[in-house]
């Protein structure tokens, strides 16, 4: 068995492993991987997302267990220091040595730190690893604590620098991007597009300083500013250097490999270095006198190296490497492809610019007008994929080439038809080298029959994700051509999306589930469409769950949450978390009487567990008599509006958060929605109510409330995003009415607000337009609908205990008053719990 050692466990090193084990002839090899960082390879392209979620696992390309499951020995936290090529041996910093048959260097790069006087000062960072980010975040929060309006500069206005700008914005500091060149992203953009991008960034609060050569970093031990020239300084509290990369090629020097004059290990088109058993791939490899800092060429290099080692010598790196890129910088589309800009003797340009909307589009065509040579898109890169494909495949341009960037406006179509028109050889996913032909044939020959299948068998879209829209289009169009339905329908009984079904129910005035089945569905329904329609009826008519109990999800049917052993929990509403001592005593008395386990919930209320179905009406009768109402903890409905204590007691409070939380909770209680809804109100920016972790959060600031929406905790935590600033109570309610109603109408079943926003075309900007500016002209209708739901509120537990017929639902057996003797509880601390499951 031969040994292949891979030095470096970054994105390209990982890709090498993935491709290597997938190759059929790799069984005769043992793969050993060294990584210097403490964790397995992660997605550096999306590093700035770490600021939003701080979830290193989410960025991981594969968990540590993946390596062992595939027979790969992964050694992290160990640096390789030396190569002895004659002995085919490497040495590590800890003094161990390993022998190899083939060595693959994927050591990547380090950030380039320009030799500026003072870069060693405290508060100067580089932007490359998760550890870098963690240090930056810790430092930023120290600054914010003493200086709420602190500033951070980013040295370098390239791709990575702008990503770092987003990171600074997320950290809550004022970002300043400092670039040596007279334009942003000098490799990808021309001057005009750079100006458009600059305007957009400045509108978002990112200051841009161009043509600035930094002479020195000011400050004593700690950075206080940057000096560019005489009388030209910028005060900053922090600096992030993102001025390019330098290959980590030290290992190449230790064994005398041929190096480039400015660094990098020289490789040929087999990725072979000057020593035949040593390969170099990724940002350490100097190919065609170039270091390629993009992920797609790195992946291609990994593929070539795998094939060369396994003896497929015909797989070679192409001479020309496509450097096209598309990315979203702080929500702004920026893309460039082919030759983005060129002098007029090389080609002619068609340029569209609209600074009022921060839009810029440029395409370069050959003098005969037949070939697309490249282009730039800023502000709207929806057409990037197709333009890029036209460029790569040398497809003929239409007669009016300008239609490619301006023609489609207002007609809803696009000048170049669909991705289906591309040749089969067109590479759709460049990260994973997936062609149009391989996607379509996999569907046509029956290997796959959904987007999910395609992604799992071709890995398309799993790299940068930029090709997703095209892959979706190809899958849908191909399936359609095969006569298959591809709509996101509710289930086999209703061939509509939830939003369509909502429209049908409303227009046709359908009021019961059976009527819906008769008029627009078929069969007997199922556990998916029944609660979906129940939720739609609730939205349109505000029926409580009592009206048609058999179509409700089990929890709604019994107005309580079913627990592990089939017992139920009881959660009365405690609006805003405010409760009187008398009511607390009632809760205690009821819990004692029925032997219930009690716990404070995360939503500032009290949960009583272990109630038997038979006892629910009696328990609720007592609670209702004491003035409690249903807390709807069992429903896809508003749960709680959490509050901090606010200005009534808190010495920092800016406004009465408890009063407002109660008002909001009382307003939206009982309203059914596609998923549960949670709210929060904080009395100041210390945010004790954790309002930004909720579907809607309100935070008191100078001059009013800031309203945030679409956050959640749960499995994939998301911070809520700012919808409106410094607004009064009335406006908060107005916007919330519109936002909630729009969500309730348009979301898919069981889709929370954060996921819904992600799917909403145009994202937060679009939501602001709809809610704040009323761009769809539906605000009044949304408000009226919401008001009518609010007016029709009824406590469904009150209905249930007052109506004998409803009360019958809670009998465990319909033919005897016996209780369920299958329920077993065991003692725990001073209370009880269900007997644990044994399987």
């Amino acid at each position, binding site marked *: 068995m031969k040994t292949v050692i891979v030095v470096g466990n970054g994105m390209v090193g990982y890709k090498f492993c993935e491709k290597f084990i997938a190759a059929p002839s790799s069984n005769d090899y043992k793969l050993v991987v060294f990584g210097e960082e403490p964790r397995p390879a992660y997605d550096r392209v999306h590093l700035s997302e770490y600021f939003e979620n701080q979830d290193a696992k989410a960025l991981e390309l594969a968990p540590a267990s993946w390596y062992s499951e595939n027979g790969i020995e992964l050694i992290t936290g160990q640096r390789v220091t030396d190569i002895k090529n004659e002995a085919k041996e490497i040495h590590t910093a800890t003094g161990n040595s390993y022998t190899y048959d083939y060595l693959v260097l994927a050591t990547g790069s380090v950030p380039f730190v320009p030799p500026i006087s003072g870069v060693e000062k405290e508060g100067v960072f580089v932007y490359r690893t998760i550890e870098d980010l963690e240090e930056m975040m810790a430092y930023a929060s120290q600054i914010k604590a003493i200086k709420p309006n602190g500033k951070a500069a980013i040295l370098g206005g390239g791709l990575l620098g702008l990503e770092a700008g987003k990171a600074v914005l997320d950290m809550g500091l004022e970002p300043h991007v400092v670039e040596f060149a007279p334009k942003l992203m000098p490799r990808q953009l021309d001057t005009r597009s750079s100006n458009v991008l600059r305007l957009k960034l400045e509108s978002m609060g990112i200051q841009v300083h161009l043509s600035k050569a930094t002479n020195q970093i000011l400050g004593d031990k700690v950075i206080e500013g940057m000096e560019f020239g005489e009388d030209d300084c910028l005060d900053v509290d922090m600096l992030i250097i993102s001025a390019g990369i330098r290959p980590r090629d030290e290992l190449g020097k230790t064994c005398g490999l041929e190096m480039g004059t400015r660094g990098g290990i020289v490789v040929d088109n087999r990725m072979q270095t000057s020593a035949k058993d040593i390969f170099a791939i990724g940002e350490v490899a100097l190919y065609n006198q170039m270091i390629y800092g993009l992920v797609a060429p790195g992946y291609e290099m990994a593929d070539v190296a795998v094939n060369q080692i396994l003896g497929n010598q015909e797989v070679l790196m192409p001479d020309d490497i496509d450097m096209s890129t598309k990315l979203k910088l702080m929500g702004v589309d920026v893309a460039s492809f082919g030759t983005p800009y060129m002098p007029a003797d090389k080609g002619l340009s068609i340029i569209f610019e609209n600074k009022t909307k921060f839009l810029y589009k440029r395409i370069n065509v050959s003098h005969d007008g037949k070939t697309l040579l490249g282009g730039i898109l800023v502000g709207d890169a929806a057409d990037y994929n197709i333009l890029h494909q036209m460029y790569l495949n040398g497809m003929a341009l239409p007669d009016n080439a300008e239609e490619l960037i301006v023609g489609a406006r207002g007609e809803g179509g696009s000048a170049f038809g669909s991705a289906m028109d591309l040749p089969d050889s067109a590479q759709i996913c460049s990260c994973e080298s997936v062609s149009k032909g391989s996607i379509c044939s996999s569907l046509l020959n029956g290997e796959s029959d959904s987007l999910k299948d395609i992604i799992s068998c071709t890995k398309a879209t799993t790299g940068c994700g930029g090709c997703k829209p095209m892959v979706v289009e190809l899958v849908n169009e191909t399936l359609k051509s095969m006569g298959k339905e591809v709509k996101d329908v509710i289930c086999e009984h209703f061939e509509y999306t939830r939003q369509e079904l909502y429209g049908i129910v409303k227009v046709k005035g359908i009021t019961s589930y059976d009527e819906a089945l008769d008029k627009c569905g078929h069969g007997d329904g199922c556990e998916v469409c029944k609660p979906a329609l129940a939720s739609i009826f609730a939205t349109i008519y505000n029926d409580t769950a009592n009206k048609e109990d058999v179509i409700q999800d*089990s929890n709604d049917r019994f107005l309580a949450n079913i627990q592990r052993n089939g017992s139920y929990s009881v959660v009365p509403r405690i609006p805003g978390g405010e409760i009187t001592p008398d009511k607390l005593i009632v809760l205690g008395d009821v819990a004692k009487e029925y032997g219930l386990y009690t716990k404070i919930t995360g939503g500032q209320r009290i949960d009583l567990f272990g109630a038997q179905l038979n006892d629910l009406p009696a328990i609720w009768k007592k609670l209702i008599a004491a003035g409690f109402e249903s807390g709807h903890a069992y429903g896809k409905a508003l749960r709680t509006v959490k509050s901090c204590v606010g200005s009534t007691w808190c010495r920092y409070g800016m406004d009465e958060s408890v009063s407002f939380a109660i008002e909001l909770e009382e307003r939206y209680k009982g309203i059914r929605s596609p998923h549960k809804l949670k709210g929060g109100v904080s009395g100041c920016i210390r945010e004790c109510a954790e309002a930004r972790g909720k579907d809607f959060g309100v935070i008191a600031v100078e001059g009013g409330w800031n309203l945030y929406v679409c956050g959640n905790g749960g499995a994939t935590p998301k911070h809520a995003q700012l919808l409106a600033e410094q607004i009064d109570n009335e406006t908060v309610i107005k916007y919330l009415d519109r936002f909630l109603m729009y969500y309730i109408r348009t979301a898919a079943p069981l889709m929370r607000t954060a996921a819904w926003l992600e799917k909403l075309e145009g994202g937060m900007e679009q939501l602001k337009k709809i809610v704040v500016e009323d761009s769809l002209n539906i605000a009044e209708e949304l408000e009226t609908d919401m008001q009518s739901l609010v007016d029709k509120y009824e406590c469904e537990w009150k209905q249930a205990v007052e109506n004998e017929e409803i009360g019958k639902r809670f009998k465990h057996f319909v033919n005897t008053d016996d209780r369920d003797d299958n329920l077993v509880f065991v003692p725990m601390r001073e209370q009880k719990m269900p007997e644990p499951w044994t*399987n």
Partner: protein
Amino acid sequence: METVFQQYNPVPLEKVTVWFKACHEQDIPKNGGACIKYKNKQIAVYHFQRKQKWYACQNLCPHKMEMVLSRGMIGDSEGIAKVACPMHKKTFSLETGENLNGDLPSIATFPVKLENGFVYIGFSE
């Protein structure tokens, strides 16, 4: 717990020796289910009013051994009458007892007949 599960064996129509008068037709919600007790057994009974059919099965879900199937939502999957357990939405055919979305053991089903507005369930013991 295993022993509880073993108490429930399917009863084909020809093996019925006892027709137990379980409840009144109106005790079972239309297009829904409820639980009845026979000796020490818990039996879920469902009324598919849309197609005028009745089904009965064990109340015990074989997934986590909880007595909950009568509280599940009913419906059909490609025409086969089914129930979804309220705990984790495991679905079972009410015609054969087979688990439709996994590989859990089948549940026991029982014949049901209606006479003079009463629901009778067939047992062999």
